[in-house]
């Protein structure tokens, strides 16, 4: 084993306290330094943190940003989300292959650049986009690919890539990114002017129970999609047995088409940490964790700086703002490319240095969460609402919105619309009003709530966006009249096939089969019976899956089957001779014919 590798790993592990629960930090650091986590490295990590080698491999093999195989010093990950494809990522992909002289999944012969695809990287409003290690390059075109590849070949250092700077804090020297915020509509809660730390000061003047009651009275519900009442979650966590408690902010937005948390982390970082601090005070936690998705690593230094500033202003640390005995601090935990880690128990597994498998419930995180301690996991947007509730009061918070869903919601709008970006709208807005706002009045379909939500057609455009009607974590993708909704459903199923953790049967195998049937239909081999199989298979996956991913993954199929039935029906046809049209012998023997350099004789009755 190379001395270099062992000494580096020894140092990394030591820096992480030789603590195996910090495995994510350890393997990320090794990957960054060596471009891989090799067999040798895994053996040595296991020795340093006193665990089994296979347990290290279990983690490394789970996250797409980690790899046992050697990768280039620069890894280019082109986003192949549905929206990126709609804005031309396939042409961009060809350009990358041409400029680099390699195919996707390969590394250049000099070992310097690896080219890969990535699922949604949170840049749908400025697609096509790609990651160059941690740097993000948006609005890609064939010309831009030429430029950027020529640029990277000069120095092989993504941080030196030339690009213009985005707006707001994207231009901050610690972010230094070309990403744009694209804030299109400012509502009264999140993007309005507000008094920083007023909410925290008010909260600290109240008892913890009073803070929870205020949040309850504001009827604040989780903004990540599930909509669980935040006050109740905090109450359960506060009431759970045990001294040590945690609050975790879920900044792992990975739902294709969502990017609003990216904007909040860029422009409302202080507000978010203020919310976490209030949450910590409410539930009795002295530690918070911000779980930041690997794709947003470009924001990390900036967020660390915001945290450092808050510490120096006594907004974090000991006896915060003079409140004796209230100690609270936040650390950032990086993810490494796994959509499933947005599921709260998977996120906790990941924070504990494990593969991102969801945990068995019960017990719920409020009872037994991070390291077995009561834990509240809250979404970025939810936590950003908290300081406003405490600053302005619950009564103010519920003034707008619909009866069952008070206040405002951030929507990440992208796809076939004139104004993609982030919209803060009051709950209860009609779909048709939203379409007008975003410049998409000719829309054929709308994906609302991301692929795990629903794909609706014009019949539903008079419905409203709120928890009681069309619920959403924030992703809204618009599809114009020319899009094939069966193909769209197949693309989203591809995503779930890639992102299933594989723990339970229906999600691991069922999604693969759903995708297979869709492909069969799209290639013209589908039969009318396949629609019935799709429906029943989708229902089984939905009913029997273990966590929220599998319970919602068939939605692209089930909702298009319901709302775009005609599109399916025109693609499947009954054969006249009662034979299945699934096997094309000429196509099947073609490969062999090419090798043998001779035609086969096929007997036809």
């Amino acid at each position, binding site marked *: 084993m190379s001395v270099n590798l062992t000494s580096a790993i020894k140092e990394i592990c030591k820096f992480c306290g030789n603590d195996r629960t910090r495995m994510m930090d350890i393997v990320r650091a090794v990957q960054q330094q060596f471009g891989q986590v090799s067999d040798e490295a895994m053996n040595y990590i296991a020795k340093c943190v006193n665990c089994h*080698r296979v347990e290290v491999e279990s983690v490394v093999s*789970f996250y797409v940003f980690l790899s046992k195989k050697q990768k280039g010093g620069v890894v280019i990950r082109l986003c192949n989300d549905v929206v990126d494809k709609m804005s031309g990522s396939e042409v961009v992909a060809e350009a990358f292959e041409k400029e680099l002289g390699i195919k996707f999944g390969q590394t250049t012969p000099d070992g310097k650049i690896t080219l890969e695809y990535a699922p949604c990287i949170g840049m749908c409003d400025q697609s096509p986009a790609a990651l160059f290690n941690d740097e993000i390059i948006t609005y890609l075109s064939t010309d831009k690919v030429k430029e950027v590849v020529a640029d990277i070949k000069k120095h092989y250092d993504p941080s030196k890539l030339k690009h213009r700077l985005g707006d707001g804090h994207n231009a901050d020297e610690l972010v230094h990114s070309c990403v744009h915020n694209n804030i299109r509509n400012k509502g009264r809660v999140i993007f309005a002017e507000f008094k920083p730390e007023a909410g925290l000061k008010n909260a600290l003047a109240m008892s913890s129970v009073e803070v929870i009651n205020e949040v309850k009275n504001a009827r604040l519900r989780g903004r990540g999609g599930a909509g669980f009442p935040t006050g109740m979650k905090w109450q359960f966590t506060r009431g759970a047995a045990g001294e040590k408690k945690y609050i975790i902010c879920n900044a792992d937005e990975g739902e294709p088409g969502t990017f609003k948390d990216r904007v909040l982390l860029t422009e409302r970082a202080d507000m978010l940490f203020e919310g976490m601090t209030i949450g910590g005070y409410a539930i009795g936690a002295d530690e918070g964790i911000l779980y930041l998705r690997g794709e947003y690593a470009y924001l990390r230094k900036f967020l660390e700086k915001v945290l450092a500033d808050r510490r120096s202003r006594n907004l974090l640390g000991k006896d915060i703002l003079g409140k004796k005995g209230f100690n609270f601090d936040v650390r950032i935990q990086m993810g490494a490319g796994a959509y499933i880690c947005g599921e709260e128990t998977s996120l906790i597994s990941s924070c504990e240095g494990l593969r991102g498998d969801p945990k*068995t419930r019960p017990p719920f995180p409020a009872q037994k969460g991070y390291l077995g301690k009561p834990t509240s996991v809250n979404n970025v947007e939810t936590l950003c609402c908290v300081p406003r509730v405490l600053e302005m009061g619950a009564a103010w918070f519920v003034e707008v919105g619909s009866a069952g869903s008070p206040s405002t919601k951030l929507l990440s709008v992208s796809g076939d619309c004139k104004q993609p970006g982030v919209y803060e709208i009051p709950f209860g807005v009609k779909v048709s009003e939203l379409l007008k706002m975003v410049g998409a009045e000719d829309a054929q379909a709308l994906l609302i709530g991301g692929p795990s939500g629903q794909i609706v057609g014009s019949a539903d455009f008079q419905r409203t966006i709120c928890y009681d009607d069309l619920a959403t974590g924030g992703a809204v993708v618009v599809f114009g009249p020319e899009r094939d909704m069966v193909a769209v459903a197949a693309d989203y199923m591809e995503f779930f096939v*890639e992102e*299933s953790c*594989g723990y339970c*049967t229906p999600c*691991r195998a069922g999604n693969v089969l759903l995708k297979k049937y869709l492909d069969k239909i799209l290639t013209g081999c589908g039969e009318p019976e396949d629609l019935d199989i799709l429906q029943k298979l989708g229902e089984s996956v939905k*009913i029997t899956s273990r966590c929220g991913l599998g319970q919602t993954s068939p939605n692209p199929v089930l909702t298009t089957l319901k709302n775009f039935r005609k599109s399916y029906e025109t693609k499947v046809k009954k054969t006249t001779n009662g034979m299945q049209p699934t096997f094309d012998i000429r196509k099947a023997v073609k490969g062999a014919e090419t090798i043998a350099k001779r035609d086969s004789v096929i007997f036809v009755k």
Partner: protein
Amino acid sequence: MSDQITFTIDGVEVKGKPGQTILEAADAAGIYIPRLCFMKDLIPHGSCRVCTVFINGRPQAACTQPITEGAIVENDTAELKEHRKNIIDMLFVEGNHFCMFCEKSGNCELQAMAYRLGISAPKYPYLFPKRDVDATHPDILIDRNRCILCGRCVEASRDVDKKTIFEFVGRGADKKVAVNANADLKDTDFKATDKAADVCPVGCIIKKRVGFAIPVGQRKYDTKPIGSDIEAGKK
């Protein structure tokens, strides 16, 4: 807290103890809830989903869900049977299962479950994945073609044998059981006497040289369907 909890399964009153799962209480009452990954004395894995039941209208895995007073559990219904059959079909097509020449035939829980549910052939297309075989160990063979990722070997080795020979690697359809070595089982300290050598429900982890000690036709599920032992205890 009362030391007895009363609830119903398909309308039949069942009494259980606090802390018991639906599946444990049902077993004690002689009511069989089909299951695959569950094994007594191991932590319920809850991964196969075959034991999915409706509890007060909500789908839950019976092996991990604790019993609650007055709960209404639906188990033996046409809808659930359909879901269970679909799951078994998925397991058959996502691996490579050839019962006719598998030495586990007749003792295989997957095969037995298929027969109990009335499946003679899966309805979904076979996926024919490429899976590895590891025959390096002198006494044990691992044929991953037949693995159903139930987690029993992982748990038994970790929690009972205290060895952690097995762990899951990869994710999604690429998830598989790996061994605690750079490559092969022979490089671990796995023994045929380990608990983990005796837990595989299918023919994935099998002992060498004993496969046909009992002839086909006289094996565990050749005469009575899987679950019969539990149903025999019906009160």
